[in-house]
């Protein structure tokens, strides 16, 4: 499946605001570090994402891009 939500991990500061804003509770901090030393936010259950973009709108670091399936 093509991802609905994509994180530019190098820009992420692990602040967790996107986690608190996600209505589906699918965002978590990954068990790895980016080059700044932060645990980047990520989503594994892409199929549960509803493309609401709440995460993108609350992210202070413009880390997130959101897509939705095109209606046929």
């Amino acid at each position, binding site marked *: 499946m*093509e991802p609905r939500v994509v994180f530019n991990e*190098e820009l992420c500061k692990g*602040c967790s605001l996107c986690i608190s804003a996600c209505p589906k509770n699918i965002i978590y901090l990954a068990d790895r570090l980016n080059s700044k030393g932060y645990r980047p936010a990520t989503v594994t259950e892409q199929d549960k994402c509803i493309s609401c*973009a709440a995460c*993108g709108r609350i992210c202070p670091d413009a880390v997130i891009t959101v897509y939705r*399936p095109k209606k046929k």
Partner: protein
Amino acid sequence: MMELVFERTNGLTEKPTHYCPGCTHGIIHRLVGEVLEEMDIIEDTVGVASVGCSVLAYDYFNCDMTQAAHGRAPAVATGIKRVLPKDRIVFTYQGDGDLASIGMAEIVHAAARGENITVIFVNNAIYGMTGGQMAPTSLVGQKTATSPFGRDIALQGSPIRVSELLATLDGASYIERVSTHDVASIIKAKKAIRKAFETQKNGLGFSMVEVLSTCPTNWGIDPKESLDWVKEKMIPEYPLGVYKDVKGGK
């Protein structure tokens, strides 16, 4: 096939910001960048950064930028606005220490003159950059580096409500206070910023959006708790809403 719903605006440069994790300065930057892009005025705009954590804003906005001495951004913006062709857009981006302490004279007189500029006023109730000293906007009882027992009205006076104050001036055309504590309020904040820039574009005079913002680092709480603090502590002291809208008859 996927279609795009939300992406980083071209109104910001590619440069990663130096702001602390979860600091809502970053959200406010993005909203201004999105408005510049959506109004198609990136190429026509000059921004004036101030002194405070946003001193490096000139690296982050994708329009022409300059940076003013502490508190003087409205005076510098006045000069730039007056010498450039009329279709150019000029805005300042100022913190509460910058605007409401050392820069109180400049902001009041710019508003009183009805300067056709837009002010983005980031109120986080503290001096962030210098280590969390009390600001004129700090709340009663708020503990800061210079009010370790909490702000005391008898000693330090009461918080200054800048939007209410400037709205009393005839030169002010659009004044609104907004917040960044949740997604709905962020969407509202963007609409206000758009209205302020449109006020300037239509030649109507002085516009300011006061944005309630966080400073997790100096408030000493995490980014999410900081959003809650804005909602529970700041908004009752600084009610949201439109304080002046000459076009809307307010």
